[in-house]
Structures are given as C-alpha cells and as structure tokens.
C-alpha cells in the first residue's frame, strides 16, 4: 500500500460521523481548534428516529417526566453521573444552536410524549417541529393517516394502540392510497421526493400538485379531527413547506410520526449538522475507513485512512474516537472476542460467549452494555484502569457500561459525551 508522505494536519481529529462525532467536532471547533472529521459510512443518524432522548426511563423502569430530576436514580458509573448535569445541558445547548427552529422541546426541562410508529408513547427531550403537533399529552382529536403500501405504519392499529395506552385525545386511523404511485411495489420513498418537489400527479380530477392531491385524499376523512398524523416522509429539504401546504389546505395541524430506517427525520438532522460543520470550518473526509495509526509512547501521532488501497495519514494533537458501538461498527466481534476496531482499546466483556446475552429479548442484555470504559475526562482505559493514550477521548455509542436502548438515553449520551470530549480535545490541543 502506498503512503502519502505529507500528513494532513489539524489540532483535533475526530473519527466517526454520527451524532457524537459531529457534536465533538463542533465543540472542538468552538474552542478555536482546527478540526478534521473522518467518517467512513453513511451516518447512523439515518437509522435513528430523529428524536433526541436524554433519559426516558429510570433503571427501575419508571417513565421519566423530568430527566434532570431523575439523574439521581442512575448508578455512579453512568456517564451522566460522571460528567455532571452541566455537561448534559451543554450538549443540549449545542444541539439547539445547530437545529434552531426546526426542533422543539427546549422551552421546558420536561420530557415530551411522542407517539411511535407502532402505537406506543415515548418520552423524549427534543423533537422535530414536524412532530410537534403530535404530542400524546395534547387532548385535541387526532386522525392518523397511513398508506396502503406502507405496511410499517398501520394507522388504524397505531390509533387503537395509543388509545389502549391511555392517550387522552380521541384518535382514529385510516389507510389511504398515496397519490402518484404507479407500480404496485414502488418504494414509498419516491413519495418523499415527489412531496419535496411538489410534483404534478394525475388524479381522477386531472393533474394536480401532489401536496394538494394528498390533502384532498385526507380531507374526506377529517371529521372532527384537529390534527393529522402521517408517517415521517413529508419531504426532505422542503419538509416545512410540505407541512404548511397540507395544514393550509386542511385547516388543521399536521405532524409526522418518526419511523424506522431509513429515517427521513434522521437524514434531515444529518444535513443540519453537516451544514453546521461547514459553517464552523470543520474539514470533513468521508467514505474511507481508518485502518491504522502511529503512536509515540502514550500519544497517538496520526491515523491512516485507506483510500482505494493508498494510505492517507492524518496528524493531530488530540483525537476523539466516535466510531459507534456494535451498530456503527466501532466494535468488532468474532466467535471468540470483542475488540475496539481502530485503536484496539480495552473492551471489557465476558470470555464465555454464553454470558453475552440473556433469555428475554426485552430485558437485560450484557451485549447492549459493551463498549470502552472511560474516566471523567472520557479517556478510554486499559484493563488496569490507566488511560490507553493521553490524547485520545471517546464519545457516543462506543462508550460502554450502560444500556442506552432501555433508558432511552442514546442521543443524550452522544451529545453529552460529544460536547465534553470535543471541548476537552480542543482546549488541550492549543
């Protein structure tokens, strides 16, 4: 493999382009450091709902209304306990700066309750403005609208399930055929782009802009509904306009229910973060994995990406590891062991693979807590408790010790650790 001789230099090098990596890069840039962000694959934000959960459940399984009041229920080793609530506020503040008016929830410290696409109610700290009219605590009547070919969102079932969970608003659900689709198995994501561009579609009453055609199909089902909930595919770039047009035609509020992958709200959020990175002057290199690194004693000097077989060196004073967990592939595993994929940091895990999992898929799973262990400065530790490297910090899903999927705290963990790791890296790089 050829090696480029002149290394690309920056003060801080962040590895990983998910929520934690992008947050780290922005936080580091805010300290005045020059920042390089290396990302390999498409961001895992595309798989996330776009909701920003900070803490939804206590370890005892109680739903959390006030996340900052519930921090005391967390164990001492929890990230939130280690870094303190100011760091959580800092993470949310950075997020709020990035997303501006496109998200809601920052007006209160309380969690909001948002309907999920299988009809459960979920506590979250920040939600897209596109979803704001859908809060489950609101008492105004809702009509959920699904599409015939989109089996992931069954509107009549979502409505019945939310009612059974005690949602106070009267709800109904109907399934309609989406305007403008042609082939019987066309992917619904064509609809996202058609709504973005407000394409003209043919209907029984002639050619119409698709937003109007959709609104007309919903209109006859409205009855007394004061809000209409649709699966989250109301456009990518022009989503606010799609919603405004639907609301104007229907005369009621319209909201989106966040969906599973590929998540449109997740993609919108990714775009906003990428814009913020560009504005902050963060240099991005995308599409190539970090495959090797040079260390000098307890300091990492540079990392190498593999670009079509040639090795590209990136030199920095400080590094942030934000490569994700098992999903983002920051952790690798085979039948015998679990490893951290870039620096081979220590990842505590049982030697016996039968201890990686439990019997009930919905309760305790050791593998969900796999990740590197860190100190309060977020430096990964080796098995004796000393930092692996003096200039390496970790953020996001690569951190171990907590099952964020059960707590509903994944985004909060990424923002909190991202802002702290990025800020410390920026400050120490000068």
């Amino acid at each position: 493999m050829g090696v480029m001789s002149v290394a690309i230099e920056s003060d801080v090098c962040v590895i990983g382009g998910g929520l934690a990596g992008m947050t780290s890069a922005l936080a580091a840039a805010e300290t005045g450091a020059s920042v390089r962000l290396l990302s390999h694959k498409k961001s895992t934000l595309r798989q996330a709902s776009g909701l920003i959960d900070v803490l939804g459940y206590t370890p005892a399984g109680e739903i959390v209304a006030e996340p900052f009041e519930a921090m005391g229920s967390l164990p001492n080793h929890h990230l939130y306990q280690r870094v303190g609530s100011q760091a959580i506020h800092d993470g949310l503040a950075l997020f709020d700066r990035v997303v501006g008016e496109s998200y809601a929830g920052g007006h209160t410290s309380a969690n909001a309750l948002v309907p999920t696409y299988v009809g459960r109610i979920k506590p979250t700290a920040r939600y897209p403005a596109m979803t704001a009219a859908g809060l489950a605590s609101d008492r105004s009547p809702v009509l959920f609208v699904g599409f015939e070919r989109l089996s992931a969102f069954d509107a009549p079932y979502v409505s019945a399930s939310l009612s059974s969970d005690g949602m106070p608003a009267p709800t109904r659900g109907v399934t309609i055929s989406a305007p403008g689709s042609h082939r019987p198995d066309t992917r619904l994501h064509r609809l996202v782009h058609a709504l973005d561009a407000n394409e003209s579609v043919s209907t029984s009453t002639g050619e119409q802009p698709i937003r109007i055609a959709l609104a007309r199909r919903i209109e006859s089902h409205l009855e007394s509904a004061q809000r209409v909930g649709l699966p989250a595919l109301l456009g990518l770039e022009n989503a606010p306009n799609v919603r405004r047009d639907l609301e104007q035609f229907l005369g009621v509020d319209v909201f989106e229910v966040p969906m599973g992958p590929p998540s449109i709200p997740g993609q919108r959020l990714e775009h906003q973060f990428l814009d913020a990175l560009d504005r902050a002057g963060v240099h991005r290199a995308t599409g190539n994995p970090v495959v090797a690194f040079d260390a000098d004693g307890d300091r990492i000097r540079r990392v190498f990406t593999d670009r079509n077989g040639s090795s590209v060196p990136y030199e920095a004073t400080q590094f942030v590891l934000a490569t994700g967990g098992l999903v983002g592939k920051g952790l690798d595993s085979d039948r015998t062991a679990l490893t951290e994929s870039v620096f081979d940091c220590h990842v505590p895990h049982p030697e016996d693979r039968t201890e990686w999992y439990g019997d009930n898929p919905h309760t305790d799973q050791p593998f969900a807590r796999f990740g590197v262990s860190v100190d309060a400065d977020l430096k990964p530790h080796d098995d004796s408790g000393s930092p692996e490297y003096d200039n390496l910090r970790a953020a996001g899903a690569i951190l171990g010790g907590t099952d964020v999927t059960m707590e509903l705290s994944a985004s909060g963990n990424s923002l909190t650790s991202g802002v702290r790791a990025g800020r410390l890296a920026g400050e120490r790089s000068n």
Partner: protein
Amino acid sequence: MDTKTEVLVIGGGSTGCGIARDLAMRGVAVTLVERGTLTDGTTGRMHGLLHSGGRYAVSDRESAAECISENRILREIASHCVEPTGGLFVSKPGDSEEYFERKLAGCSACDIPTELLSAEQARAIEPYLAHDIERAIRVPDAAIDPFRLCVANAAAAREHGARIETHAEVTDLLLDGDRVVGVEITHSNDNGMTGSTERIKATHVVNATGAWAGQIGAMAGVDIAVRPSKGAMTVMNCRQVDTVINRCRPKGDADIIVPHETACILGTTDVEVDDPDAFPETQWEVETMIETLSELVPILDEARTLRSFWGVRPLYEPPETKTSDPTDITRQFFLLDHADRDGLAGMTSIVGGKLTTYRLMAERISDHVCDRIGVDGVCRTADVALPGSENPMHLQEAMESFELRSPIARRSVQRLGSRSSSVLSTSDPNPVICSCEAVTRAELEDAITEVGTDLNAVRIRTRASMGNCQGCFCAHRMAALLHPDHTVETVRTSLEALYEERWRGQRHALWGEQLSQAMLTRYLHATTMNRAQSQTESSPTVAFERFDGGDERGD
C-alpha cells in the same frame, strides 16, 4: 365437552399429520391433536434433508432402501416442498478410502444412483469446496421444507374430513379397564376455548408424539423407553453451497450442509437428553459445527450465522438392546401395539424413524390401525399429490397475473405451489411485508386465516421473519395484520411470542454481523418503537400532565 372420533392421533409432526392424511383418505374419521402448533416438536427442528439413502448405505441398508424409494415418491407428491439440489459425499485426506468404496457399493446395492466425481468435477459443481478434497460421490439428496410438508399433509387430511386441533395438549388418557378409549385435552388456542378441557372418545388412539411418546405412555402405565437425542443445527445467512454436502466418513458430529431456501443449515450433533423439553443448548455444539464443516467449505468460518436451533430425535430401541452410544441406536422406526406388548388395547405408538420415511411410517401404522378397527381401506398416499403440488403453476403466469416483480413472484410460487393463484389473487395492494424472504401481505393474510393469531404458525407457513433480520423489520408488521379482527392486546401478545421465538435461536449466533443486527434490532424495538419499556411497565397509566404540553405555535 365430549366429542367422538374413530381414530385419535396425538402429535402434529410429520408422522402424525401423515397418519391423519392416510386414514382420512381411507374414509376413517380422524381427529389429530397437537399441544403446540404443527411441527413444534422434532419436525420443525431438523436440517431439511430429503435423504437419498446414501447416508445409511453402509450402516443400515434397509433404511437406505426405504429412503430412496420414499425420496422418489415425495418428489412427485410433494413437489412444492422439495428442491432437487442433489447431494455430494466428499472425502478429505485422511478419510477412509475403504469406507468410500463401501459407500459406493452400498448405494449400488440399494438402487441409489451414484456418480463418482474427481475433486475438480466436485469443485466445478460447488466452487467453495476445500482445495484439498480428494473425490466425491453424487447422490439424489434433496432439500425439503418440513413445515410446508407437514402443513400440506394436515390440509389434505382436513380436506378428507379430518379434524386438526392445534394448541390442544393431551392431559390424560381415558381408560376403560385395560383399554384406551380416548383422551382428555386442554385447549390453549385463541378461539375462545382457552383453558377448557375436552374429552374425545375414540375407537383407537395413535401415539405419534415421537420423543414425547414415553410421557403419553406413562398416562396409561405403559413404558415406552424413547431415548431422546438432541442435535444442533446452525443457520447461515446465505447459500454457500447449492448442493447437499456430506462428509464421507462413518458417523460423527458436524458432517452435513443442507442448502435451504435462502440459507444453509449446518448439522449436527447427537447427545442423549433426559427431557425433550428441557436440555442445555451448548456453545461447543455451534463451535464444532462451524469449525468442522469449515474443513469442507472453508468460507463458512467467516460467514454470517443467523441462529442455531436444537431438535430432539425420537430414537428408540427395544429395551433389551441397551446401546450405550446414541449415535449407534438404529434410525429404524418401531410400531408398538400396546395390546400385544403391554396388554393395553386401543392404542398404538410409533417411535423412531425420520422425516424422509414419514409417509411409509404412516402407511404401516394406518394399515395396522385399519386392521385393528376393522376397516378395509387401501393406502393411496403415494399416488395422490399433496395440496399445493397438484398442478405446478408456471412462474411467468404468476408474475403476470399478480403484478409481482420476478424475485418476489418466484419465491411466492415456490412456497405456495398450485395454491399461488387462490392466495395471491387479490384486488388490494399487495406490499412485501418481509423483505428478507419476499413474503407479501396476501400470503400472510392467507396464513392468518388458516391458523389465527399464532404468528409462529404463520411464520412456518410463509417463512416471514426467517431471514437476515430475524424479524427486526417485519415482526411488528406481521402482528399489525391481526388488527382489527383482533384486539390490541392480542396483537401485542402474538408479537411478543414471535419476537421471543426469534430471539431464542439468534442468541447462539451473536458475534460479527449478527451481533450488530441484534443491537440494531434492540435500538429499533426498544428505543424507536419503545416496545420494551412500555411492555413491562407495571402501571399503564402515564401522568400525561407532568410532561411537555407543547410550545405555543405561532402559525
């Protein structure tokens, strides 16, 4: 509740369903009861090999001859359940040459067609075979879908008037002196009969419960010393081979790879267990299979594993035989007439045997039972096609008439056979619900109509949730199809049962890609859907007023 039948069959596996079909076709009134769903026992937990007989050609020529004969019959009557993959017996350096020759001779003696292949010829057929293989014997092994086969037998029995009652566990045998006169069952299905008991009087009872036969026998005080033996099977995420690959050596663990639908199944181990419902699923079995079979097909070592599952062989030998090693116990089947054997009239048990010869076993039992109850019926099961296999539908026709794109239509028609037309003819949109296995809504709704809210029964009929994602992207969609015919509570309960069953097998494949998949599934179901916490919430009432009431919106 009391009901009556002529013959009551206990056990909804391949043998029980085969007996029900056979007797019903002879005009006998049959009721079949199964404690879970069809195939829940051993039938649904095997590697899906339709034996050519080659496996037994050295050790047990009688079994080998039965296998090749039944193999030929099933290709005709169950064509929509069989994929004629062919099979290879492959030898590696160090494997006995003498055994290889005896295999060839044995096949020849049992009328099993063979072709001797050089290493190059074998690798031309299966390019992923190891470079050091020495030679191979080609035999007419095939892959068979045990679920589809079993369900088709039950459907045929029902067409001929049989009653098939699943989720109905036998809780007692009804005795009149030294005669069995029926059974008592307890219902656990979802048609409003849950918890109720029913006494079914019968002229004759057939105990076709395989590894569980001893438990039924004990209810009447007879000893049926089944020796259940567990075997592990590991499912790979794709077809590394398209031919059944056997290691050509005497008995041993981990010596077969069966291509099956979109996957390959590695088998197996052989360890005697005490209780067929509770035995350890151990990691060494999975490791052994991957490591040993990688000697034949090296890429298996690095390949993605979806899950592992265990089945229990209903091995039996006459009590005086006392074989110590379960791998030495015969694979023959035994008909136990309890009148002759134990002085208990009115009941016959069938133990031992294997899926490939299920029809023959059913024929022998049915002959015996007809003799006992004085019915003159002739077995016709070898000559009449099973439902779905009567009239293989042309693929092109299916694609055009159902407006499905080619891969989806192909998969649907493979599964449904000649039922394709009636199942897929729908004027409603027919989206794909399970993308991994290309299962459409119409196919799932057809299965739900047939079996109700048991999504695992729907799964085995359609293969939905059996692919790479193991239900991550489709389990909830399948469950939602139950609404509005069923309540939210039923949808949730059914979803949990499917989700837990999928988890049970996946646990044994949690490394590499499948561990990533499991974590993604967890994020999606626990976090994005919030299914985990709301499921276990002790108090369902949320204090809505304590949460964010929304910001004032300016528009």
